[in-house]
């Protein structure tokens, strides 16, 4: 079948891209200066054995790759290094076991930290995306329907304004506003609530989520409204809309059966790209609201030069972007029959 073939091709490309990113990502952090052992070298109390122990602990005693000096990774053997005993292959092998290494700073497994942080981020952007997509699409349709009226211009102006607001600035403003109204301003939960009943705990988390989610929704709402409006206006100017009118369809039927499906195409692309990037892109929001998400983790790790966490987070982001694009491709093939034959 053509469709299956198309899906397999897309899937193959995604796997290839992830492999490429994985390799690049690995070397990116090996080229950077500094490791935990070297950071301690300046401390005269640190004994040579201790430095060695740290290096062994993080696997830094092994060569990065065989024949790294000649920069020729394919030359096996002559360098007296077993390729399977290099950092690269150990990294890849551990990756398949779900092991992303150990954080330099906290000494905890990276996978564990990232999983916890990722869940918090998904909670935040999931709710924010759902809200901004639904509201943005609805507002966009409404604006296009009332095109060139005061309502349309009002929606246009508001969306442009919302879209161009700096995220952190909006976050800070909302933070002030929220704190004046008794909303929690930092973190995910009030300390000491872990013993509360589950329902109350969730209520507490939702109260904490309110302001960051609102910031997120406002920023992305504008973008979705603008794209939906212009895309729908484009489609409404098509001849097949006039044809549909001539066939006797009313406005609602035209929107439902003809316009929306075609107008959604550009939006699907933007949503997919946003979904991938917002995993990292909520950094500003997470920093402002001290939300313990992935963006916050990246921010902290950069300050601490915690390379294993950064490396893991980068890989996660890359995978998220690639997956989101894969989903966009699949949605496309469902929405637009022309895609499959290309």
């Amino acid at each position: 079948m053509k469709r299956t073939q198309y899906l397999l091709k897309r899937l193959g490309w995604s796997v290839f891209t992830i492999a490429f990113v994985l390799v690049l990502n690995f070397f990116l952090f090996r080229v950077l200066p500094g490791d935990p052992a070297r950071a301690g070298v300046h401390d005269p109390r640190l004994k040579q054995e201790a430095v060695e122990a740290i290096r062994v602990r993080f696997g830094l005693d092994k060569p990065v790759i065989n024949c790294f000096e000649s920069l020729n990774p394919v030359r096996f053997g002559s360098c007296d290094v077993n390729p399977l005993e290099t950092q690269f292959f150990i990294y890849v092998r551990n990756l398949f076991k779900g092991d992303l290494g150990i954080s330099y700073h906290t000494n905890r497994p990276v996978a564990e930290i990232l999983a916890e942080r990722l869940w918090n981020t998904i909670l935040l952007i999931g709710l924010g995306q759902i809200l901004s997509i639904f509201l943005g699409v609805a507002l966009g349709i409404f604006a296009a329907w009332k095109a060139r009226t005061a309502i349309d211009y009002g929606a246009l102006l508001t969306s442009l304004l919302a879209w161009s607001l700096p995220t952190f600035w909006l976050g800070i403003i909302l933070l002030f506003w929220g704190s004046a109204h008794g909303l929690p301003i930092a973190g995910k939960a009030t300390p000491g609530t872990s013993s509360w009943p589950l329902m109350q705990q969730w209520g507490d988390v939702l109260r904490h989520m309110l302001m960051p989610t609102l910031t997120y929704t406002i920023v992305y709402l504008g973008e979705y409204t603008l794209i939906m409006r212009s895309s729908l206006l484009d489609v409404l100017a098509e001849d097949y809309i006039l044809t549909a009118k001539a066939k006797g369809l009313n406005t609602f039927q035209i929107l439902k059966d003809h316009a929306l499906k075609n107008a959604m195409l550009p939006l699907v692309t933007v949503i997919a790209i946003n979904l991938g990037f917002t995993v990292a892109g909520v950094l500003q929001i997470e920093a402002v609201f001290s939300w313990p998400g992935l963006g916050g983790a990246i921010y902290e790790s950069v300050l601490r030069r915690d390379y294993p966490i950064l490396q893991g987070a980068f890989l996660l982001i890359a995978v998220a972007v690639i997956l989101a694009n894969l989903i966009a491709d699949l949605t496309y093939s469902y929405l637009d029959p022309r895609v499959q034959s290309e």
Partner: protein
Amino acid sequence: MTTPEYFLEVHELKKYFQAGRPGIFSRRTRRVHAIDGVDLCLERGETIALVGESGCGKSTLALTLMGLEKPTAGRIIFEAEEITHADERTRKALRQRIQMVFQDPYESLNPTQTIGEIVAEPLVVHGLAREGGERQGRVVRALEDAGLKPAADYLHRYPHQLSGGQRQRVVIASALVLEPHLLIADEPVSMLDVSIRAEILNLLAELRRTRQISIIFITHDLGTVGYFADRVAVMYLGRIVEVGRTKEVLKNPQHPYTKALLSVIPVPNPRLRRERVILQGETPNPIDLPGGCRFHPRCPVAEERCQQDEPPRVTAAPLHHAACWLVSGKKP
């Protein structure tokens, strides 16, 4: 003079569009005179060709007849029923009887629907042929009547998998499926390859014969008119300047504009070659129409009175009218 047995009557139909908004400096709203007083009658089963250059108001006339544009003034009477300002419900019922074929088959089909869905949609919308089998039967019949045989090969395909000619047949099929009484075809062949044009024209001619459909055939190409139209109406700047039986108009044109149009149709036989009348200048701006006869700035035989007074429509021969001072005939 109203003769009630006419199938479609158009009286003094006008459609003006606003050209931009009234500005800060000019309080007067400028208006485009897209159709400016069109009179037209059509008998049941008759085919009339509407000829004119781009921008003369042919397509606006079609859209106004379809009710897709609201007329500024005038009346439209269809099957003894005034439909000029029909409300939404009447209009929807009318859509079953008046259907339209648009110019561009590449643009007028929704790319996300299959051919079967496109042709069945009018039936669904109007709640016709509710039984699954019956609906399918009508879709298949419409497709085969439009020359897509066997229809089963096309039902599940998408528009992008068809050629231009096939697409236009799909457009025609989805107009036919409602079994309309009047078909308005707005330049149905101008976007198609020359080799396919004749096929589509033949198809329309055949449909007219077998289904007794009246057709308003809009074209800018006088050459295709003689093919199957009973009568031809020549439009210039929003008005019909000459109308008559096709043979008569082609053989014995009265209005200088028609003469000019006819003179530039290539004739294969060099011995029959006529002197070409090449019109000078551009079509005047339909916002500021010239006074008097609207053709006078380009007319090769214009006289002084053409600049002052608008010529009345006179009858040159039975059923052959023209609006020109130089045509002798009696006023209707």
